[in-house]
């Protein structure tokens, strides 16, 4: 029943974008988001879009994959578009009927917001498409490490994320097994009203929780028996290293921000 679920959306590859340090990708994604929000003039979305498309081409992730990640967004997009179209009353009137007043300012703003949203999601999707979840948590841990001086549990947070990611497929498989066992005992999961259906889930959820706790217990034991004692003094197998490519990517992204700031300062 759950066999078609894939976790995350990582697109395996070995492109320059894939090879970037996850820390670089995380920071540059934030920089990219800042760039998108800095744009006040719609035409400046052109270099931003060019940057996003360029990075996608470089990553050799098919554009259709990026398109697919935009799909869940469509209703939000439509909603935002219509809302802006109807609420903004600046500029020359284009169409007046009953309570609906569409103006040039409204059309402009609606397009602007929609574009901003698409570019935001496209950028973040590109990062998750080119970085494995494990590399991401790894990068996140390294980036948050300085904050552990302020008692921020960077390592624990990253370990929790890693474990959660690792166990999602396992628990799905388990849920599938339990579901089949209860179906064989005549469980009816598909008929009845919401309340009855929720009640019918109890025979699946209880064993699932029991087994999740049991697994957690066993994992904790296994980790302790291999001398796990938290992040202090722990060395890693894959040490993250910045490469010249990271510097290039950073320069390009900062260049994009500089361009936007400069153009807007002049005009």
């Amino acid at each position, binding site marked *: 029943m759950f*066999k078609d679920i894939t976790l995350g959306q990582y697109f395996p590859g070995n492109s320059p974008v894939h090879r970037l340090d996850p820390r670089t990708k995380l920071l540059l994604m934030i920089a990219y988001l800042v760039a998108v929000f800095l744009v006040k003039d719609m035409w400046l979305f052109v270099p931003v879009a060019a940057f996003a498309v360029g990075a996608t081409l470089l990553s050799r992730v098919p554009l259709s994959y990026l398109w697919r990640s935009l799909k869940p967004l469509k209703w939000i997009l439509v909603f935002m578009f219509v809302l802006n179209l109807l609420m903004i009353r600046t500029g020359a009137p284009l169409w007046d009927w009953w309570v609906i007043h569409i103006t040039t300012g409204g059309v402009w703003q609606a397009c602007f917001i929609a574009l901003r949203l698409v570019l935001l999601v496209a950028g973040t999707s590109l990062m998750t498409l080119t970085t494995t979840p494990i590399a991401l948590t790894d990068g996140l841990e390294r980036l948050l490490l300085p904050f552990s001086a302020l008692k921020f549990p960077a390592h624990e947070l990253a370990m929790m994320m890693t474990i959660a990611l690792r166990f999602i497929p396992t628990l799905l498989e*388990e849920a599938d*097994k*339990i579901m*089949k*066992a*209860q*179906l*064989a*005992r*005549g*469980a*009816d999961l598909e008929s009845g009203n919401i309340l009855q259906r929720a009640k019918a889930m*109890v*025979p*699946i959820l*209880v*064993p699932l929780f*029991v*087994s999740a706790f049991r697994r957690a217990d066993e994992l904790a034991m296994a980790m302790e028996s291999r001398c796990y004692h938290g992040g202090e003094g722990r060395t890693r197998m894959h040490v993250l290293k910045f490469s010249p490519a990271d510097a290039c990517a950073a320069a390009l992204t900062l260049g994009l921000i500089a361009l936007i700031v400069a153009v807007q300062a002049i005009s």
Partner: protein
Amino acid sequence: MPIQLEQLSYVYMQGSTLAQRAVEDISLTIEAGEFLGLIGHTGSGKSTLVQLMGGLLQPAAGRVLVDGLDLADKKQRAQARRGVGLVFQYPEYQLFEETVAKDVAYGPRNMGFGENEIEAAVHEALELVGLPYKKFASKSPFELSGGEKRRAALAGVIAMRPKYLVLDEPMAGLDPAGRSDILHTINNLRGEIGCAVAMVSHSMEDVARCAGRIAVLNQGRLVRIGTPAEVFAQEDELRAIGLDLPAPCKLATALRARGLEVPPLYEMEALASFLLKREGRHV
């Protein structure tokens, strides 16, 4: 009326590049009241076959008839499923209720038994698996020992009064005493409630001891089906697909090679008493 599998095939991840044939063109019949053992190496399609028999997977080709009712037919499926009790690997993970009695009653209740009938079925099933009703009915299933949990889960299926009991590795992960207890219980069920048993097992000894017929699976195909004598006579074939002979069988073969006349026996006790008798001693 039997369970009939007719040219059954099943493919995992059908339509993708990862498609994998798990069961291919299997035809076999489980007769009412018989004990059929299903053996095969890991990945030979045993567990898939079990799920197909319970109507939990839909075959890619072929069909499953339970007492003449087609499991693929939406109208007949519910009725057909009633006849088949499935016990999965590690069935204790399906326990969920507050008390053992309530958990065992879950299946019968889903099947629409009346309250009195449920009560009677629960009582009977618990006694059959060796968990005395008085002692265990009001216990929480989560405070039982591993072997007791396994029994309680088994009772949950037996209480549905299936005509065919299909078990996937019912003894996996139990200690020797627990194994022989469960096997004994399963074997007794045929006499007590007259249901047929199809049991998947890795243990050649267990299958040899109980099964009237044995089906051998390899890479999704049915390689051989026959009495234990017929199946275990094919030593080379079994070894070629990664299976072994039961220990008494190996001993008998070794004795035969040394020139001793030994009939085909699959139980250590039977072999031992034969040898003692041959020596002129009685046990």
